[in-house]
């Protein structure tokens, strides 16, 4: 479980995050939703420590990230897998090398063990036989899947995915959603997914946090999001026809 309290961050005098509290639960797909530019990526980066918040605390299963020594922090970091918004694959390395990278640096596995692990993860994301391809030869969806494979290769306890299905067709997008859900159940990870795809919210969202202009406006799950009593969230959801119809059905 990840617990964060009162996260504040400003950039160049502009308050992006205005004191956000929340929890992400273990073994569930936690979602962070909100319009573009509300600070979802910034909040995610504050939680994993890529951006230092001006105020606030983050706890990973009771371990305070910002108020602990370097070793503890390193330990926490090694339990984190992250898929970035733009995949962030190393473009001078092959798919296999990309996925193997954390193993090379952080473990003492033998080459055979590493290869086995890499192949297992690539299979998991349905990319067997792409080991020797370069990132530039992959489509956007394939890159995301390699990114997921790299994020899970260390058996991470915490899996962060920044917009895993933006820019993908609905079919691939659903495949990736299902994949994330399966991985979460299989490895009992604390998964955090940033998204603005309402489809994936109603599909896999188990603990949903809605951000609006740097503030948390609503928290709940997919079963009660349709009846949510929150003006901003309603507006956000209403932009999707699918949701409009579903909501009409609920009322």
């Amino acid at each position, binding site marked *: 479980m990840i617990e964060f309290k009162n996260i504040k961050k400003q950039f160049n005098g502009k308050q992006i995050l205005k004191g956000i509290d929340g929890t992400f639960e273990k073994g569930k797909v936690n979602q962070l939703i909100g319009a573009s530019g509300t600070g979802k990526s910034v909040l995610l980066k504050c939680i994993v420590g890529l951006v230092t918040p001006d105020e606030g605390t983050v706890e990973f299963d009771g371990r305070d990230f910002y108020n602990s020594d370097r070793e503890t922090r390193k*330990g926490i*970091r090694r339990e984190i897998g992250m898929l970035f918004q*733009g995949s*962030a694959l190393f473009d001078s390395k092959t798919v296999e090398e990309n996925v193997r990278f954390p193993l090379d*640096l952080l473990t003492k596995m033998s080459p055979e063990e590493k290869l086995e692990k890499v192949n297992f993860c690539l299979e998991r994301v349905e990319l067997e036989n792409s080991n020797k391809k370069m990132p530039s030869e992959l489509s956007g969806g394939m890159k995301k899947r390699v990114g997921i494979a*790299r994020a899970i290769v260390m058996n991470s306890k915490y899996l962060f995915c920044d917009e895993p299905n933006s820019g993908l067709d609905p079919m691939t997008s659903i495949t990736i959603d299902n994949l994330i859900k399966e991985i979460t159940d299989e490895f009992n990870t604390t998964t955090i997914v940033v998204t603005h795809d309402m489809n994936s919210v109603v599909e896999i969202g188990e603990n949903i946090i809605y951000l609006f202009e740097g503030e948390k406006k609503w928290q709940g799950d997919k079963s009660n999001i349709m009846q949510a009593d929150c003006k901003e969230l309603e507006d956000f959801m209403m932009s999707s026809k699918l949701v409009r119809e579903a909501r009409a059905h609920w009322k």
Partner: protein
Amino acid sequence: MKLLGRYVIFLGQMFTQREPFKVYVRLVIEECYKIGVGSVFIFVLVSTFMGAVTAVQTAYNLLSPFIPDYVISLVTRDMAILELAPTIMAIVFAGKVGSNLASELGTMRITEQIDAIEVMGINSTSYLVLPKVIASLIVYPLLVILAAGLMIYGGYIAGIFTEVITKEEYIYGLRADFLEFNVAFALIKAFVFAFLVSSISSFWGFYTQGGALEVGQASTKAVTTSCIAILTADYLLAQLLLT
């Protein structure tokens, strides 16, 4: 001033919390190869021509019956070793390798590759930058030795070709009044400049913010600041070691 502070912190991060030594060996070899192969052609070209021009111009300026011809090769040699090979070639090095380092790291920054390394709990500064700096410290002095040799050779070819000096006299001049200290001085300069160019360029690349446009700007800044640093350090070293 703030930049200078950030640069110092950057250097500090590079040398602390390193990964195991073994990790670096392979990275350094890769970088050496990239830097060496990438810049050897331009170095050969520039240094041969510079040597030739130096010899011809010295000959032109020394049109006097009282000055022996071997002074031409003596001057070419000292110019090459003391200033042209280490300093001027450092500017070429900044243009070729410095801009490359800055744009490589800048691209990695804006595509979040650096964040990806950092989030795994790896010190990205030392993982990415240290091998580049060490590789520069190994490769650049070698390039300087190569350049000095080619400059002297270029002068020889030009001298013989334009018939301003004979073979024997050129070789005699090369051996006359030779100071070994000059070679040591050139190598000290080479190490200092290699460190400056690689660390300054990496610094600009590493802290790029924004998009492709900013990567271009970072690479320009890398070259200009490196050049300023090279010239300042050149002057300081001359003051410190030659007086």
